[in-house]
């Protein structure tokens, strides 16, 4: 099976279409960024507090919002999370902007949020601990004390394992929240005596914390600086490597194409309301590498064809190179695209922004190799004025030919 036998497209003749397309994409993306007053920065860079909470039933978001406001948390935000993958539609994320450099402790915001939630949703548990937020070690301590399996004094290790299994059943199989102790029936070693002992000692809270992220202001700006440095250094490193393997103009063309890719991807981020986080920076750096790869494959072929096809005009050589590598390009991009698409659809909420960056990046990175990088090299070559590299039929060639006749 073969898709691309005998392709012969005049890529370099279509450069103006490519450039127009790029300009449109850039304009659309960056208009969106301007309209939103910049890129949406994730908590990694802007600092603040995020608390992800899972409820046992549908969370009354408006009620919670009022509760937060009346507790003095005026700059709090609350949002429901609807993840196509999760087995629960009862998640919310509560965010707090970060305050100035106050002397208050870093987690004052988180404590305030938890206080509000406990007040609104805390069950009247009569002093019992909440099973939905207990750690395995504390659970093991309780079980060892109560000894429902009548194991005697040296049962510590067995209760450790039982506690771990109970906690795993809660976390892995039931999404972190239990609504009744009966859900633990199938855990190995959870005899009715054990369950009864749990029932008497614990209550089942209505919510559990899934995830907490608190980033202080100093750390935020530190991470931002590191992200920028990493990107610049990586680009410089690659420029040096390519200039070393080819000529420097190839390096420059590749770097310009990569910049173009990153700018368009960032534009798409703004259009689709994704946040820039540390993992997104990782995705951007990866797509920088990927776009370089793609460009290098074409340049490699150009270098090889330059030796084989000395008499042909340069744009023709470039066209031929692109056509020859088209099969590989489409295949690899296609397969990489499919894998990151799977990641986007199946990989969960945490990686969503990362995989979105990769999905957009793979497509744009492939396109920029023949749409941006190759044309730059061709244009540069033309303006260096090599006789043999000028295309047949143009005014310049006629001029050169006229000179040659003189």
């Amino acid at each position: 099976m073969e898709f691309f036998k005998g392709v012969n497209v005049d890529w370099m003749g279509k450069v103006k279409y490519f450039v127009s397309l790029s300009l449109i994409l850039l304009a659309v993306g960056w208009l969106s960024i301007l309209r939103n007053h910049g890129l949406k920065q994730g908590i990694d860079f802007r600092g603040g507090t995020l608390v992800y909470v899972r409820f046992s039933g549908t969370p009354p978001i408006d009620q919670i919002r009022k509760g937060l406001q009346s507790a003095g948390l005026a700059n709090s935000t609350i949002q429901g999370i609807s993840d196509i993958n999760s087995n629960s539609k009862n998640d919310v994320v509560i965010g707090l902007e970060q305050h100035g450099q106050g002397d208050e402790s870093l987690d004052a915001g988180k404590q305030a949020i938890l206080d509000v939630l406990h007040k609104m949703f805390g069950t009247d548990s009569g002093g019992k601990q909440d099973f939905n937020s207990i750690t395995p070690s504390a659970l093991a301590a309780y079980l060892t004390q109560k000894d429902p399996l009548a194991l005697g004094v040296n049962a510590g290790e067995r209760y450790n394992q039982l506690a771990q299994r109970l906690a795993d059943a809660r976390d892995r199989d039931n999404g972190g929240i239990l609504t009744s102790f009966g859900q633990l029936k199938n855990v190995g070693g959870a005899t009715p005596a054990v369950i009864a002992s749990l029932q008497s000692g614990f209550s089942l809270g209505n919510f559990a914390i899934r995830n907490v992220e608190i980033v202080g202001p100093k750390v935020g700006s530190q991470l931002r600086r590191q992200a920028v440095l990493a990107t610049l250094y990586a680009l410089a490193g690659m420029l040096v490597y390519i200039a070393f393997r080819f000529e420097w103009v190839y390096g420059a063309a590749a770097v310009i194409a990569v910049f173009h890719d990153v700018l368009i991807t960032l534009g798409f981020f703004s259009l689709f309301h994704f946040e820039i986080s540390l993992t997104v920076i990782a995705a951007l750096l990866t797509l920088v590498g990927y776009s370089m790869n793609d460009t290098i494959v074409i340049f490699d072929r150009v270098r090889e064809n330059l030796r084989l096809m000395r008499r042909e005009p340069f744009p023709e050589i470039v066209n031929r190179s692109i056509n020859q590598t088209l099969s590989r390009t489409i295949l690899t991009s296609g397969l990489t695209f499919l894998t990151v698409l799977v990641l986007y659809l199946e990989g969960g909420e945490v990686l969503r922004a990362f995989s979105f960056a990769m999905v957009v990046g793979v497509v744009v990175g492939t396109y920029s190799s023949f749409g941006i990088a190759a044309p730059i090299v061709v244009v540069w070559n033309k303006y260096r004025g090599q006789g043999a590299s000028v295309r047949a039929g143009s005014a310049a060639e006629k001029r050169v030919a006229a000179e040659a006749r003189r």
Partner: protein
Amino acid sequence: MSSQLKWKFAFIAVVILLCLFGVLGMPIFPTSWAQVKDNLASRIQLGLDLKGGSHLVLQVQVDEAIGLRCDQTVDQLSKQLHEKSINVGEIRRLNDTQIQVLNVDPATSAGFRDLVSTQFPDWGLAPLAGSVNGYVISMKPSVVADLRRETMDQSLETITRRINALGLTEPTIAFTGRGDNEILVQLPGEGDPTRAKSVIQAGGQLELTLVVDDQPYPSEAAALASRGGVLPPGTEIVPGRAEGATSSQQPLQVFYILDRAPVVTGQDLRGASPAPSSSYPGQYEVRFQLSTAAAARFGPFTEANVGRHMAIVLDHKVYTAPVINSRIEDSGVIEGSFTQESAQDLALVLRAGALPASIKYLEERTVGPSLGADSIREGVRASIASLIVVMIFLVIYYRLSGVNAVVALMFNLVILVAFMAYAGAVLTLPGIAGVILTIGMGVDSNVLVFERIREELRNGKANASAVDLGFERAFLTIIDTHVTTVVSAIFLFLFGTGPVRGFAVTLVIGLIANIFTSIYVSRAIFDYHLARMERQAALSI
């Protein structure tokens, strides 16, 4: 098959076995899928975002320690100048590292300079600009740097002792290396770091001092007023809790006048432990034992002061001020409204030692275990799905050679996982994304070779030489593409934090393994196939 090929396959077989051993951990084939999963789980280190746990970045306020040293020097300087009868006008701390001395009596200024240079070698003396007979004494920069480093080292040790005493599994405590006096603490499996945070942050400075007046005062002003506005020499005013305040009320603040020099400090403790309270049933107390040397001081002290109050000062706040009823040799008790856990924590902190400077938290991330489990499940599912998609496509498009590529890909992943198990590299959720990217980008190497082979076959080359040319021409391109991605990944590793580093690690290992599998292993399989094929038959590609 040629002997060279035999050696190649032997080598590949050895690598496979090593990898399987690293991944599965036993030479026998595992008996059940659950056992495989267990082995895998125990050999691969999971990051916090997959295992659940807490990640804390804290900053040691090193300047406090430096300022403290400066304060101590001011005290010592005053005392020694007084002893040597050198008159000065005013000694004042200017900032963390500088002391200002005004109006040095010109008659004794030589003695003054002499004293400073011999008794205080860590400090440099310079005349104060714009003032006659004024000097500025500055801590030498090398001394400041040493003090900074000592403070950081001591903080790290103390925090490590405290966390180890909490009995948490495999914590990580280290300097972040990002400069600026930061320490990173990672507590795998801790879904709620509240207790650990308070144990880490507790100052832990214990002092037992004599209370000068029997009664505390309701305010600092009242305390001063009782002494006519001037404190007796060698005393200071310290805030404390009102006696009789229960744990549920907001404790009122009172002020004590205490001796400045404590008779016993936390460094004199031989041990500390929590115990149920003897005087307040239902509550707990902390009992401590003193070292022999300290006991030799404490005994006479208590004997000489029977009937007076002794203040138990924790982190510059009076905790309790009980009456000394009789001579106490080497033990004592700190009573208060402790729960069992808070008594345990205080005993732990006292045993581990005091922090030389206070701690401020800069970053806190806690991944709950349910999120971690979800992330693993989703990551694994996405990996398997993408693997299947790629495999199906390869076989359809390249037929038997596609099978070659699939084998190379599987091998690539096995090497990747095994290497991570051997190296103890941490797998994070972005790391799983790195595995998926390895699948996608690794296929590129095979595609480059196969497309080249197809091209050469189309140009009329024979099978063997097409394969040769394919690998030869594609080799440099493969290296080029891998180098650029590895360069990206290296910078990501250098500048990134935990999860991003995990991504960089899996990507780099995956790509390096990819070079081996797509060039060496694929080639070996081709050679084997070619050797067994008939010369004229078409290569299935």
